[in-house]
C-alpha cells in the first residue's frame, strides 16, 4: 500500500490523481501564469471534513506536504511550494446555513462567493465584498485574500468572517470563533468566544495551520437605494484627491476607489485630458431621503477638494450586467495592444499594497518613479494604479503591469523594479495583501519579524512534521 492507494481508500479512486496533466493544471496562478510553476504530486478532491481529516492523517504518516486550493480568482496562492498533495476543495460547496434573522451564513470551504451571495440576496442580505464575480471559494478567500479585485470600505473578505471549522494537521477537527457554538440553539452569532480570538490564526494562513472546511460569515442588510458618483483631478492635485478620499471614507459610504488614468483607459473609459485620478464612490441607504443626504455629503467633499464631476465611471466600473470584475480586468490596458509589442500577461509589480490612505501621494510617486526608471510605466508599457479603501484611512493598491513574459529583458526590468519598490515599501512599514507564496516567495520581511516568529512557534506545535503548506512561514527569516 502506498500513499496514493491510502488516499484512494478515503475518497475513492476517482478523486485521487497523480496524472501529470492533472497536476500541472493546478500549477498556475493568474497574473503569474506559467512563470511560477509549482506542481503538486497528487491532487485529491475531498467532499467532507471527515475525508480531509483522514487525508491529513495519511499525509502525516508519510510526512507529505498538503496545500489546500479553492477556486481562486485573481491573486491568492497558487500551487504548493513543496509539491506533495493538493487538496482541491471544489466539491465541498454546500451552503450550510442562511440565517436571515440573525444575518449569518455558513458555507463549506469550496462554496463560491457567487453561489453564497445569490442565496443571501434572496434573503435580503449581502456580503459587502466585491469578490462576487471572480468566484473565489469561501475558504480560499478567507485563508488568502484571494478575490484580488478590490474590497469595499467594509474591508477584506476576512473582515466578514466570524468562524471557521478547521481540520488541524493531526486530523483533529476544531471549531473556532462563532463556529465553536454554531450547533447550539443560539447558532453562530458572534466571532468571539470566551477567550482569545482564534479565527485570526487561520486567516491568510495559506492553510499552514489547518485546512479550513467551513466558514461562518456575518452579513449585511442590503439597502434598496444606491447611488454612484465619480470625480476627477489632475496629476498635480494628488494631495487634494487623497484628502477627498480620506474625507469620503471617514463617512458611511459603501465603496470608494481611486484610479489613475492608465487604469481607466485600460477599462475602456474615455476621460478628459486633465483627468489623471478618478475617485469613485458608491453610497447606499434605506430610503431616498437618507440617500440624498449621503450623496450631498460626497458631492460637498469632492467639490471642496477641487474635484470635477466625471459621470459614468462609478456606476459602470464594477457592477453592470453582465460584466464582472474578472471580465472587466480581462481586457488589458490599451497600451498592451501596441503594434510593436504584444504584452501577454499581467504581473503584479508589488502584489497588493496595504498602507495608510494618507500615504497615497508617497506611494504613487514612488511607484511611478521606479517604474519609469525601468521603462515600465508610461505607454507603450502597461501599468495602472488602483486604490480601494479597506476601512477608513487604510487603502489597498494593486499595481498590475502587463508585459511580455517571453521577453527576458522586460521580465528582468520588471523584477528589478519589483525588488526596488518592495524594499522601499517594507522599510516604510507597508504590508502586502498578497504576500503569500508563491507570489513573492523570495521576499525577505523585515518589518514584522516578531509576529512571524510567534507564528512559526505556533506552527511548530500544531504541525510538527510541517506538512501543511510548507514554505509559507519561512518567509520571515532574514
Amino acid at each position, binding site marked *: 500500500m502506498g500513499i496514493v492507494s491510502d488516499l484512494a481508500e478515503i475518497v475513492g479512486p476517482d478523486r485521487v490523481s497523480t496524472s501529470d496533466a492533472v497536476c500541472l*493544471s493546478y500549477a498556475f496562478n493568474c497574473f503569474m501564469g*506559467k512563470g511560477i510553476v509549482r506542481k503538486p504530486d497528487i491532487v485529491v478532491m475531498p467532499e467532507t471534513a471527515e475525508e480531509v481529516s483522514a487525508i491529513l492523517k495519511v499525509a502525516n504518516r508519510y510526512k507529505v506536504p498538503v496545500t489546500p486550493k479553492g477556486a481562486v480568482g485573481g491573486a491568492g496562492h497558487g500551487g504548493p511550494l513543496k509539491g506533495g498533495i493538493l487538496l*482541491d476543495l471544489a466539491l465541498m460547496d454546500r451552503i450550510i446555513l442562511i440565517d436571515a434573522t440573525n444575518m449569518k451564513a455558513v458555507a463549506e470551504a469550496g462554496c463560491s462567493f457567487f453561489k453564497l*451571495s445569490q442565496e443571501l440576496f434572496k434573503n435580503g442580505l449581502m456580503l459587502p465584498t466585491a469578490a462576487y*464575480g471572480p468566484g473565489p471559494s469561501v475558504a480560499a478567500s478567507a485563508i488568502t485574500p484571494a478575490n484580488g479585485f478590490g474590497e469595499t470600505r467594509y474591508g477584506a473578505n476576512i473582515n466578514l468572517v466570524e468562524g471557521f471549522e478547521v481540520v488541524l494537521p493531526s486530523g483533529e477537527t476544531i471549531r473556532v470563533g462563532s463556529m465553536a457554538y454554531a450547533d447550539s440553539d443560539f447558532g453562530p452569532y458572534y466571532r468571539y468566544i470566551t477567550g482569545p480570538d482564534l479565527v485570526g490564526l487561520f486567516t491568510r494562513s495559506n492553510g499552514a495551520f489547518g485546512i479550513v472546511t467551513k466558514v461562518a460569515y456575518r452579513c449585511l442588510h442590503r439597502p434598496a437605494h444606491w447611488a454612484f458618483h465619480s470625480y476627477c483631478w489632475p496629476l498635480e492635485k494628488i494631495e487634494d484627491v487623497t484628502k477627498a478620499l480620506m474625507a469620503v471614507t471617514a463617512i458611511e459610504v459603501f465603496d470608494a476607489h481611486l484610479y489613475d488614468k492608465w487604469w481607466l483607459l485600460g477599462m475602456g473609459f474615455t476621460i478628459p485630458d486633465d483627468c489623471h485620478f478618478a475617485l469613485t464612490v458608491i453610497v447606499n441607504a434605506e430610503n431616498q431621503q437618507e440617500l440624498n443626504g449621503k450623496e450631498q455629503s460626497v458631492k460637498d467633499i469632492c467639490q471642496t477638494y477641487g474635484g470635477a464631476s466625471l459621470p459614468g465611471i462609478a456606476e459602470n466600473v464594477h*457592477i453592470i450586467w453582465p460584466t464582472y470584475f474578472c471580465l472587466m480586468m480581462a481586457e488589458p490596458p490599451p497600451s498592451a495592444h501596441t503594434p510593436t509589442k504584444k504584452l501577454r500577461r499581467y504581473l503584479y509589480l508589488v502584489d497588493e499594497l496595504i498602507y495608510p490612505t494618507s500615504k497615497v501621494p508617497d506611494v504613487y510617486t514612488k511607484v511611478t518613479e521606479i517604474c519609469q526608471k525601468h521603462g515600465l510605466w508610461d505607454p507603450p508599457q502597461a501599468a495602472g494604479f488602483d486604490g480601494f479603501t479597506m476601512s477608513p484611512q487604510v487603502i489597498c493598491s494593486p499595481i498590475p503591469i502587463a508585459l511580455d513574459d517571453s521577453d527576458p529583458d522586460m521580465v528582468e526590468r520588471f523584477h528589478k523594479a519589483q525588488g526596488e519598490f518592495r524594499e522601499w515599501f517594507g522599510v516604510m512599514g507597508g504590508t502586502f495583501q498578497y504576500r503569500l507564496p508563491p507570489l513573492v516567495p523570495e521576499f525577505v520581511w523585515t518589518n514584522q519579524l516578531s509576529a512571524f516568529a510567534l507564528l512559526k512557534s505556533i506552527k511548530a506545535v500544531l504541525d510538527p512534521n510541517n506538512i501543511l503548506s510548507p514554505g509559507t512561514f519561512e518567509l520571515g527569516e532574514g
Partner: protein
Amino acid sequence: MKELKKTNLKDFKESWTFCLHCAGCYYRGPNIPHNWLELPPPEWSPPQRKCPSFEYYYFRAYTASGRGNLAAVVFDDNDFPITDDLIKVVYTCTSCGMCSEICRQFQPLTAIWALREELVQRGAKLPEPLDRIHANIEKSGNIFGARRQPKALEEIPTTGENIYFAGCTARFQQPEVIKATVEVLKTAGMDVACLGDAERCCGFVAGHDGNTALLEQQATENIAAFKKAGAKRVIVSCADCYKTLKIDYPLILGELPFEVVHVAELFAKLIDEKKIRFTHEVKKGVTYHDPCFLGRHGKVYDEPRKVLESIPGIKLIEMERSRRWSYCCGSGAKVISNCYPEFSTAITKERLVEGKQAADTIVTACTSCFNIMDKAVRKQGMELEVCDLSTLVAEAMGIEL
C-alpha cells in the same frame, strides 16, 4: 471587448494568457454576481452544474480553466511531451460551449479547440477512433465509412435552389428524419433537392478534434457541390452540420454564396407564412432539448419552441437547464460519444433524467442529439419518448412516413 472568431493559435496566443482563472467557467452555482441593486436576471444565472467533464472527472484539468493552463504550456514549449494523459484531458471536453457562454471575454472553448489544433499539427496520436473517422471521411465522405447513398435521398433531385444537406447521421442512421423533413417541406410547397452522391461529411468532427485541414477540405468540396447544384439556401437537420456550415465555413472560406438554415428556423418561417398547416392534434407534454451547436453556438432558441407551440395539443415544458444554459446530450461533438463512451453515457443519462422530470417526451432538433438520446432511452428502458422535431411536425401535418 475582444472576441475570438477563429480557432487559430494566433488569436489564442494573444488572448488566452490573460485568463484570470476565476473558475467561473466550471464552478458550481450561479456565477453571475449581483450588482447590489437587484438580483441577477434569470438569463444571467447559469445552472448549478455547468461543465460535463468537470462533473464526471472532477479535477480542474478537466475544465476550461485547467485546459487553458495546459494549453499555455503546450503552446510555449514545442517539445512539451504529448502524453496519453494530456490527450485524455484535452479530448474529454464536450465542446458544449457552456464555458464560453459564461466567459464571453476569453471564449475558453476556443482555446481548447486551438489546443487540439496544435496537438494535431504536432502529430499527436488522437484517441480512438478519431483517426478511423478521419479516414472514413476522406475515403467515403462520411464518418461511418458507408459506401452506398441511402435510399431516402435517391428520389430527390440533385439540383435546385433549396438543397437539403442531410448530414452523416441522418443519411446512414436516421432515414426517417430525412423522409419526414423532405415530406414536410414538399407539403409546404417547397421544391427540395439534395447533393446526392456529392454530399460529403461537413467536417464537423474533424474541425472539433483539431484536424482543421480536413475540415477545410470538406468545406471546399461541399461548397463546390452546393454551387454546382445551384443552391441559394442550404437546409440542415443536424445542429453539428448547422454550426459547421453556418459558422465555420465562412470563417475558413469567406462569405458563402447561399443561406444556411436549420429546419427549425425554416419550419417556423413556413408556419408564419401559413405554408405549414397542422391538421392533427398531438396531445403531449413535451420538453425541448436545445442542442449545443444549434443553441449556444448557433443562437437558435426561439424557432424550435415556436414550432412546438404551434402544434395543436402540445404543451411545452422547459427543463431546468434550457436555452443558453442547456446541458450536453452526451454526444460531445461526437468526440465524447466515440472516444469516451462511459462518460458519454453518464452525460446522456443526466440529461434524460432532467428531461423526464419535465415531461414524458423530449424533443430535439439535432440528429446527433436524437440519435444518442433515443438509443439511451431504448437501452435503459426509460419511460421517456425521444422525438425528432421534423418527425413530430410531419405527424402533426398528417404526413404518413
